[in-house]
């Protein structure tokens, strides 16, 4: 199993540009999450999904959108990038029942200038 994979690893955006961060998991997890981590800080939840076709906002959803058309994929869309969105973005997934542990992808480091 590859686990949770994310692309790209790094990206520099200009203010006002848009991009999609890709996230794929091969563990057949129903639950998926997007977090951002600012330097020296903990993680904050952006959006989450409990299954294909179902998404909901987390703590810091403004400026982002998500979709979940399949169990495996959970892309995060940034529209009109702003410097405040400079961060490291982590995707995670977990089982619906049982241990509930979240498994994290390697992250995408995004800089908006």
């Amino acid at each position, binding site marked *: 199993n590859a686990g949770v994979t994310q692309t790209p690893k790094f990206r520099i955006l200009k203010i006002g540009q848009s991009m999609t961060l890709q996230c794929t998991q091969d563990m057949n997890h129903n639950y998926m*999450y997007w977090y951002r981590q600012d330097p020296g800080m*903990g*993680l904050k939840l952006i959006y*989450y999904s409990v299954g294909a076709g179902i998404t909901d906002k*987390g703590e810091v959803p403004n400026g982002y959108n998500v979709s979940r058309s399949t169990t495996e994929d959970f892309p995060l869309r940034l529209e009109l990038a702003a410097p405040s969105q400079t961060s490291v973005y982590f995707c995670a997934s977990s089982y619906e029942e049982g241990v509930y542990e979240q498994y994290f*992808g390697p992250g995408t480091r995004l800089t908006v200038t």
Partner: protein
Amino acid sequence: ELKVEQNPLFLSMQEGKNYTIYCNYSTTSDRLYWYRQDPGKSLESLFVLLSNGAVKQEGRLMASLDTKARLSTLHITAAVHDLSATYFCAVDRNRPGNMLTFGGGTRLMVKP
């Protein structure tokens, strides 16, 4: 709103010493997780604590959970340099979706 506070935020210790990291949270939850993050890397799961009184140990690290006090501890025994990393606790919000609220992290440096 669930708040999760860790202390200390930064810990510098000598090899061979013992120390404890504390994780306090503000509302009822009976599921707590500890993660490790090396610089520039992703998060690695260390412990999953699922009930009051739960204690888990792996090598030089031991984690415990007291849900009545809303407190978890991560105890380090005879620290070694390889334990240098940032440690995060995360608390389940007890809502559908298993959402977590993370603490701010404790950056641990173990000096030879």
